[in-house]
């Protein structure tokens, strides 16, 4: 890089502004299509998860005489799905907010997401407790063999534990995001 460029800021600015490829309407269209495709896949995966939960609940309630276990799993699957949909809502892009305020808003949103995830974890523990109690009650009073009762309880518990594991993965991701946002905010504020 020559002497002139290093010393003359205006030349440097011209050099900087010369570097850019054009973006066409077709590029934006392809980007939106790609985004929609990704979101469809995510939605399908989430629907499959909820569907599995509801199917397990139906199996427990209809094919086995464990109505309460089925109700617990069904409620858990539907409430979890609602929480997931609510947390996935994107912030609307705003041109009225400066960078530091945007970082603050993003940190506030991470706090809100952490709150939803805490609610999800609490719900998981309540559901697990209800499953254990229902299974124990069935073992004491039901006429079916204990192995069928244990399998039914295990299926219900696996549904809840799978959601709990996913919750913990999301908590880890949220913590990483939070650290990065705090890092940026700390270095940007005057």
């Amino acid at each position, binding site marked *: 890089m020559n002497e002139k460029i290093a010393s003359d800021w205006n030349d*440097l600015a011209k*050099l900087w502004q010369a570097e850019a490829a054009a973006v066409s309407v077709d590029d934006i269209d392809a980007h939106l299509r790609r985004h929609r495709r990704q979101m469809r896949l995510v939605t399908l995966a989430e629907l499959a998860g909820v569907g599995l939960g509801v199917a397990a609940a139906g199996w427990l309630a209809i094919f086995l005489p464990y109505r309460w276990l089925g109700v617990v799993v069904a409620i858990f699957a539907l409430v979890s799905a609602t929480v997931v949909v609510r947390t996935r809502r994107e912030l609307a892009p705003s041109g009225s907010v400066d*960078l530091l305020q945007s970082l603050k808003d993003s940190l506030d949103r991470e706090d809100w997401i952490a709150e939803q995830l805490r609610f999800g974890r609490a719900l998981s523990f309540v559901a697990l407790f209800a499953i254990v109690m229902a299974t124990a009650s069935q073992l004491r009073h039901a006429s079916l063999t204990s192995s069928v009762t244990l399998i039914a309880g295990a299926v219900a518990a696996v549904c809840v534990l799978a959601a709990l594991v996913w919750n913990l993965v999301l908590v880890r991701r949220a913590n990483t995001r939070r650290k990065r946002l705090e890092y940026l905010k700390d*270095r940007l504020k005057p």
Partner: protein
Amino acid sequence: MTILLSMAEADSSLEKILRDHSALAQRLASSHESNPEVARDLAQEILVAVWRAWPAFRHQCSERTYVARIAHNRIVTHISRAVRQPALIELSEDLAASAPTPEELAIQGDESRRLLAVVRTLPIAYREVAILLLEGFSPAEIADTLGISPNAVAIRGTRARDMLRALLEVRR
């Protein structure tokens, strides 16, 4: 008819945004993301965000300040969500040697790309100001975009200029 009209309006506003601001979006994305593919995708995401936010623009600031704010908001989201992004490394203010070597810069090709590579090595607080100064923003516009005081812009701007010049000299 109404739908067709609104689609036509949307297309024309998108075309205007692309014509006037796609270069700015591309450069802002490239200065925060070294992977060209991801940078291109980020620039497109910025432009989509600008397009969606455009109806809310009330001329309370200049168009490019509005675009730069939205761009920064998207970049913040990108940085916080990048899955495979390595841990952010902050340079010390005394021009650490972890910047690209002369060989790396030579491989990178033309002067614009060298400048971009050097800008990426600046500590984040100075990089933000340097990028907007290079874009031709006034100190008041930079303060408005970043949310810092004009004094802080002046101090960081001077320091960023010095660091950039020094880095370019070192790697000459």
